[in-house]
């Protein structure tokens, strides 16, 4: 039988207590234990960024994080950005610029873009491209995504 551990953390602004397998990753906990399926499983090894979440104010890959390591921390998923001004602006810009095609990369892309806009690190197209290096999109060719993020961050394109 696998080893379990009880953790307590803040998920999208609400305190949660969960019992998780010690070897489980944070992505599996979010999707399979808690039932928040907005965070996507793409590659499972940190290449694609579909599973991007924010922990203590920075973006990271939930597939590269042990679920038990969420203990005591502040975790935000795409569901937690439902009423967030920056994320709302990003969502509208993604729609307007056609930055969503199949949509699978979109939650991770929005999580990363939200972190970038909030940390004011996307002053130009190059810095936006660098910022989303860890997010793969196989549909758009990225230009529409970069344009959408630039529209929100005020970067020149």
């Amino acid at each position, binding site marked *: 039988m696998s080893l379990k551990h009880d953790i307590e953390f803040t998920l999208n602004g609400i305190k949660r207590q969960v019992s998780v397998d*010690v070897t489980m990753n944070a992505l599996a906990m979010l999707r399979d234990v808690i039932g928040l399926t907005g965070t996507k499983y793409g590659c499972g090894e*940190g290449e694609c*960024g579909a599973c991007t979440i924010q922990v203590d104010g920075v973006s990271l*890959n939930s597939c*590269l994080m*042990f679920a038990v*390591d969420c203990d005591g921390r502040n975790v935000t998923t795409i569901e937690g950005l439902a009423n967030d001004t920056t994320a709302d602006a990003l969502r509208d810009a993604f729609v307007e610029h056609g930055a969503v095609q199949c949509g699978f990369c979109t939650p991770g892309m929005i999580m*990363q873009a939200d972190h970038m806009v909030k940390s004011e690190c996307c002053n130009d197209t190059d810095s936006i491209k660098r910022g989303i290096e860890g997010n793969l999109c196989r549909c758009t060719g990225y230009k529409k995504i970069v344009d959408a993020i630039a529209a929100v961050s005020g970067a020149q394109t």
Partner: protein
Amino acid sequence: MSELKHYFAPTNLDQAVECLKDGDVTILAGGTDLTPQSQAGRVKIKQTLMNIRHVSELAGITLEGDEIRIGALTTITEIMNNALVKQHLPVLVEACDQFASDQIRNAATIGGNICNASPAGDTLIPLLVLDASVELASMPEAELYRHSMPLSTFFIGPGKTRRSLCELVTCVRIPLPPENHVARFHKLGTRPALDISKISIGIAGTLKEGILSNVRVAFGAVAPTPVRAPRTEKALEGQRLDEATIAKVANVAKDEVKPIDDVRASAWYRKEMIHNITRRLLSHVAQT
């Protein structure tokens, strides 16, 4: 090896090293490597999984005398954004900037990069040319015991270091570079992001009136560990960086490395690139 039986998250260094006493412990820091490796079954987690995140002594970057101390838990992003590092160790910032992706830089730690001991580890090459040393803590009796060793003697094979199973890497210490210090780093990969080096090169030294001294050269991904290159260093030491010297040193570098063929590059290509990029970096240094 026994099954995973305990999860432990110490809040101070004494607790952490005491837990390591029995040696059957897997250490979790940033988790960016351990998570996928253990999920895929390539790494088996030992009897105890110890998460060191809450050990505050392992965090932070400070100036201690004439050394910069970078705590083992410091993330790659924290290093890149730190004023002390930016001012004194720009070559380390450069290597961190080419490390994986933003999401991984936000989680991955320098202690993890060191203990993973990948021949291609991005921070290891600049740390080698900056004469970094690692500090290890253990608890042989009832007292905490610390000792340091030069990073250049720390690696013994891919994924293998001289850290014993009872020891924890607490920090890396880097002497403040002297005046006229120059340092360059180059990582050669297929694309900038999320790539493992085909080769990487670090060169450092003191440049005075065109002459390079106290030379340090290190190569990544050309040997079972990141390596210093003593023959190349000797060929450069005390030399004026003119075209003839640079051409000669690039050949010495090419002869000195003994890379292997693998999925990322052939041995032949690696040797050619060691030659070309050594030449390029030295030309850059000559122009400073």
